[in-house]
């Protein structure tokens, strides 16, 4: 795969090089753009050496550099490119963060301050969202349910020092009393102002002078502590599955997610067949062991976003987010088979299996309890049918999987085909992917590509001739609703202003070139799961 990108890329670079040669390297802007492309794309597709040389050339060359010198650099780069593409090279290995990583929301009127914090937190495996004003902050809290919220004093307090704080409102919007709200203050905070923040519900007030390391560590440690606390509260001691408490905490989130995404969640209620007899004949210890086997086996099989809850005794509840009825039934049947295999391998003196009833949320349902009642009815039906079966409540929903339309707007064709390739391999449950490539903003807006009710993921390059990425971004956000369109910006350099500008104009996230394909994949997956 990578070879193909390299080939296309080198062909394009060659063509552009010929053009430079023809012009005797006179046009410095042209040359600069050429180097920029090699630097940005090259490292991403495994041509790191050429990228480094291009970077060096960009540093060394200026508009005053004589054409001879420019020529020497260009030819050196061309030679390296040819060589590099011929040697087999494995892409750098990279551990993509866990899908269930923590989300942190950072709110600050000047995003520059938080830029480094974001970078460092991401290397620690947390995903960071940024918001530059109160409205974006509230929208993102409601949309993403972050595990932690940090904001500057300017955002937390209205009308400067001494005004009313919005911390209580933030906590309401987060709908989770456990979410810590950390406020960091700008210069000269006095005791009174800090106390007011604490009184209004701030978990921490960080006072200057603080360093990037301090901020990163405060956040990271807190998330580390929070995880086991949350777990202690919501996990069933015997089996390690969640308990009912978790259900209470999760319910509103499930419905909100359903309303927002339009995709239902499903549940499955199970109980173990003949559990009472096992308990009676072999003792409670054996019974407990069976429960632990069941849970540990399900943990090894389930998807990260599926939840398993022990309701009591041998009764368990599965929650499948964004999953339709038919798929739920399939999943449960698969779990039944794999559990049967597991049991067979243990040569137990008794039979062990489970019966399941499933139900799927609709807009007519008002509570999780209603769904549980339906699943319960279905489970009874399954038991009557002879146990070890799965029955779904009510009519089945057969809906074609919806598309995510990926638009790649980039003047660099090799980069675009690399990005498209990653999206094609992206395995996102419940969606199909289709990509369309546009070589410029103008080409994109030439005709109407947007259709109501569809979902979009736009990958947008910042640096393009004529209409640049910002202009395209602005037009996209002005023209279309942002709730079903993710925009990921590709920026060419560590230019903080570009990033701030992109986020202010409404980009959801950014990736800095060069990036590794795993970074793109992880980023795209998380955005899709959280936004669409």
């Amino acid at each position, binding site marked *: 795969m990578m070879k193909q990108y390299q080939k296309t890329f080198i062909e394009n670079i060659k063509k552009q090089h010929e053009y430079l040669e023809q012009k005797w390297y006179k046009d410095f802007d042209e040359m600069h753009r050429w180097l920029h492309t090699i630097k940005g794309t090259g490292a991403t597709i495994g041509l790191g050496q050429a990228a480094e040389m291009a970077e060096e050339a960009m540093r060394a060359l200026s508009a005053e550099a004589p054409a001879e010198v420019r020529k020497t650099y260009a030819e050196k780069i061309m030679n390296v490119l040819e060589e590099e593409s011929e040697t087999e090279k494995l892409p750098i290995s990279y551990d993509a963060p866990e899908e269930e990583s923590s989300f942190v929301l950072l709110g600050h009127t000047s995003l520059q301050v938080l830029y480094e914090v974001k970078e460092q937190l991401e290397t620690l495996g947390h995903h960071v969202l940024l918001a530059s*004003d*109160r*409205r974006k*902050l*509230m*929208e993102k*809290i*409601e949309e993403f349910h972050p595990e932690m919220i940090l904001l500057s004093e300017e955002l937390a307090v*209205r*009308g400067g020092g001494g005004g009313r704080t*919005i911390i209580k*409102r*933030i906590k*309401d*919007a987060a709908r989770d009393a456990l979410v810590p709200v950390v406020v960091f203050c700008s210069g000269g905070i006095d005791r009174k102002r800090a106390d007011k923040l604490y009184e209004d519900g701030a978990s921490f007030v960080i006072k200057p002078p603080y360093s990037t390391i301090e901020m990163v560590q405060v956040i990271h440690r807190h998330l580390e502590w929070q995880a086991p606390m949350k777990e202690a509260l919501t996990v069933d001691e015997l089996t390690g599955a969640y308990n009912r408490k978790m259900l209470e905490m999760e319910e509103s989130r499930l419905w909100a997610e359903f*309303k927002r995404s339009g995709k239902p969640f499903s549940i499955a209620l199970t109980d173990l067949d003949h559990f009472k007899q096992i308990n009676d004949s072999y003792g409670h210890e054996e019974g407990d062991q069976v429960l632990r086997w069941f849970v540990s086996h399900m943990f090894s099989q389930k998807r990260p976003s599926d939840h398993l809850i022990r309701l009591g005794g041998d009764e368990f509840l599965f929650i499948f987010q964004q999953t339709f009825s038919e798929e739920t039934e399939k999943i449960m049947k698969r779990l039944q088979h794999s559990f049967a295999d597991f049991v067979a391998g243990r040569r137990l003196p008794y039979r062990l299996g489970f019966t399941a009833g499933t139900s799927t949320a609709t807009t007519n349902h008002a509570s999780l309890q209603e769904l549980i009642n339906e699943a319960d009815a279905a489970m009874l039906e399954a038991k009557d049918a002879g146990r070890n079966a799965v029955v779904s409540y009510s009519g089945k929903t057969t809906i074609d999987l919806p598309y995510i339309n990926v638009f790649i707007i980039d003047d660099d064709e090799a980069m675009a085909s690399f990005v498209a390739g990653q999206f094609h391999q992206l395995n996102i449950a419940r969606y199909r992917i289709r990509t369309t490539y546009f070589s410029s903003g103008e080409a994109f807006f030439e005709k109407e590509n947007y259709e*109501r009710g569809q979902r979009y993921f736009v990958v947008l390059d910042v640096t393009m001739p004529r209409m640049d990425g910002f202009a395209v971004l602005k037009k996209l956000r*002005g*023209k*279309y*609703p942002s*709730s079903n369109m993710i925009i990921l910006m590709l920026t060419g350099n560590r230019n903080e202003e570009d990033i701030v500008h992109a986020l202010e104009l409404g980009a959801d996230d950014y990736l800095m070139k060069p990036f590794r394909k795993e970074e793109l994949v992880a980023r795209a997956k998380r955005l899709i799961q959280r936004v669409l």
Partner: protein
Amino acid sequence: MYKILVADDAEVLRMLVVDTLEDEEEYIIDEAADGKEAYEKASTASYDLLIIDNMMPGYNGVEVVSMLRKDGKLENMKTLMITAKSRDKDEEEARKAGVMEFVSKPFSPALLITIVEELLDA
């Protein structure tokens, strides 16, 4: 204290908006149940902010705002429109008529207050 006029023909939604704002104790709220009433009230009294639903019988929100603009009423009054989710084209038209901000249904009280504050503090 800021004076706000809330115009929405859907009683429940109007109540939600009014209750949300009254919780903040820094606003004086007036209500209008349709476009006509909204126009009349906004013409005779002075408000700092008009929160108006677009879909209303009589005059719709955009019509009310354009009439108020013609009367020179928007010079001292800010405008926030409540819209249905699908809004792309309507929003452009409404902006031209003089609407400054939008909030789309369904919205949370927390978000509404945040937008109101931002408009009034600006």
